[in-house]
């Protein structure tokens, strides 16, 4: 396997990271029966908040300053924490309005997604296109020397490693622990969970706020590493909608969600490579307007959702041998958590 190909794979894994973190956060939220539709706006506003916090901590309030007054690490940690707080607050609005006020989650989430994008543009105007601290690379000792896996997965930065931990951690939590079972239950059959003594609404608060905080980490991951700084229009415009679609494509299962995120990042890598180097098939150069390639992720979004709704993914299950079929059932399902979008009321 040549080095260039491994580098490409490594950059796919890296560039998928904010999508992975955001869609894992949303999976946590939706598994609890609540949909946080504000993802696109949340990512934009948390990217703004995280960047400004990191910039102010490291460089001070003067936007022209080039001398650091504190270490980059302090700024980065502060930035991620502030972004988490903002993401959690936005999610809290959705939780409150859904649980206490019985408002439609889609309505509130949609208003928030617009409002947060505008808010980010308004508050971030002084801080666009200025440099700030950037999360450095940190190869994992020992693991980085593994053949193939090392260069692809373990010569990245802390945020990328965090995304691995989140994926595996959430899988373990949901399918291997008792509280994880309760987590799934409040999204599937809240009445039954309540009957078994689970405090449905309190847990929903916890998971919605936690999911929102992770969306904040994803937002900060953009402005502090993958698309450093702030720009207008925001560099990750539209990614929140793609992350929401990845959760559906991923069947609310962490492993399939991460696969979906990598797939999108791979498609982007391919199309940006074509934009840079041109496209040739069998030695024949193919000429077309490369602007059209920007439509590919959105076409793929429609196609992936079609795959899910047509039941094609579930039909894959039938091709597998019996014992594997049973084990893969939770990975290949396409039904949303049954109580998603509904409010739970004891009566």
């Amino acid at each position, binding site marked *: 396997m040549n080095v260039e190909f491994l580098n490409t794979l490594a950059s796919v894994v890296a560039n998928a990271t904010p999508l992975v973190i955001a869609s894992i956060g949303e999976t946590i939220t939706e598994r609890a029966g609540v949909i946080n539709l504000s993802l696109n706006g949340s990512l934009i506003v948390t990217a703004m908040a995280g960047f400004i916090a990191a910039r102010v901590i490291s460089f001070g309030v003067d936007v022209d300053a080039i001398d650091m007054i504190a270490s980059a690490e302090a700024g980065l940690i502060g930035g991620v924490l502030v972004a988490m707080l903002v993401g959690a607050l936005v999610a809290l609005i959705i939780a409150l*309005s859904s649980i206490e006020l019985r408002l439609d989650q889609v309505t509130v989430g949609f208003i928030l997604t617009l409002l947060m994008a505008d808010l980010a543009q308004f508050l971030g105007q002084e801080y666009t296109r200025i440099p700030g601290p950037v999360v450095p690379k940190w190869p994992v000792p020992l693991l980085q020397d593994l053949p193939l896996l090392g260069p692809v997965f373990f010569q990245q930065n802390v945020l990328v490693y965090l995304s691995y931990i989140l994926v595996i951690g959430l899988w373990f939590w949901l399918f291997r622990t008792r509280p994880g079972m309760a987590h799934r239950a409040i999204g599937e059959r809240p009445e039954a969970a309540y009957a078994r003594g689970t405090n449905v609404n309190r847990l929903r608060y916890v998971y919605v706020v936690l999911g929102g905080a992770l969306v904040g980490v994803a937002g900060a991951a953009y402005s502090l590493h993958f698309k450093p700084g702030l720009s207008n229009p925001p560099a990750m415009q539209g990614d929140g*909608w793609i992350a929401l679609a990845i959760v559906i494509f991923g069947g609310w299962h962490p492993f399939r969600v991460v696969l979906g995120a990598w797939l999108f990042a791979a498609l982007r890598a391919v199309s940006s490579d074509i934009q840079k180097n041109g496209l040739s098939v069998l030695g024949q150069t193919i000429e077309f307007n490369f602007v*059209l390639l920007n439509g590919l992720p*959105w076409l793929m979004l429609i196609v992936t*959702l079609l795959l899910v709704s047509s039941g094609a993914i579930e039909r894959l299950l039938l091709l597998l041998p019996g014992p594997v079929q049973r084990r893969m059932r939770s990975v290949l399902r396409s039904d949303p958590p049954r109580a998603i979008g509904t409010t739970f009321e004891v009566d």
Partner: protein
Amino acid sequence: MRNLNSGPGRLAFVLLPVLLSLLLAALLVLAVGREPQEVLQKIWQGAFRNTRSFAGVLNFWIPLTLASVGLYVTFRAGLWNIGIEGQILAGAIFASAGALTFDFPPEFAPLQLLLQILLGILGGMVWAGITGALKIWLGVNEIFGGMALNALAGVWGIYLISGPWYPEGGSAQQSRPFLENALYPPLSREWPVGLLAIAMTAVAMVLVPLVMARTRWGLQLKATGSNPRSALLLGVPTSRVAMSAFLVCGALAGIAGSYRVMFTYGSFRPLVAGGIGFLGLLVVLLSTMKPLWIPLIAFVFSAILAGSTRLRVSLQLDSSLAGVLQGTLVLVFILFQGLRQRLEARRGDQAGDASQASASSQSGLTG
């Protein structure tokens, strides 16, 4: 608080959100070191300083009202037509294709105008039809299908001005300007606004609610929106009804898009929809599905929008303040609506019989 349902109680739940959102916006303006009073004054001047600026407000009001009336139809059918933004853009693209192709002699100029508007309608309907087909027959949620189609229309627009419609010797920011017979004629020099478009908007805002209230189609549409399963059992062709809602909305969005290119800009630009479709969703949410309010709310929003376009020049402030103000208003309003309904429900419980009272105390513990 005594009487939430009528009179002063209800008024408070409308006025408080307005005041609260103005207060929040004022705090934001203070946070970036400007005077709220000065900003408000500039927005007011930007909208109403003379007839030309007032016409500028109307030039936002026309497409915003058209889009909102269309969205009223889809909302009533129980659909979240987030794809409206792409439908406006598709309408603009189709109308622009007409404008860049045809050059009728002066005596047939009205015919060309009509043809372009029809093309715009067609464009909006095609885009809405794809979203509808994906939703109704292929099971792709209209929120995601619509969002993807918005982005695809945007990519198509950028492709057009960087390729087929690339202006000779120009920059790839917009197509070449349309010829005069491809544009809506302005009312006058003092009132640069398309009278024909105002007339179409007025017809739409009266006719659509009327048709919704008085016809079998309107009834079927509302039945589909409130409970699709029981509507189907009652013999309503829910798929066809939902599709018709998409198409009506797409047609109105198409007119809106055609107006943006055939009057506001006089050429095609990729950002021609400019968030007007999304804003329309907020307008309808704020109207609480009372169609009479739609043109009024759209007017206030248009004034804020038109008034804040000059904030960047006059105060070096980002015009996104308009969106912040509008978004906050709708959010706070919806939250107050929820609060009012909860308070009413609680009072209803207290007035109810013993079993209901015990249920409410139980939910008070958990909720």
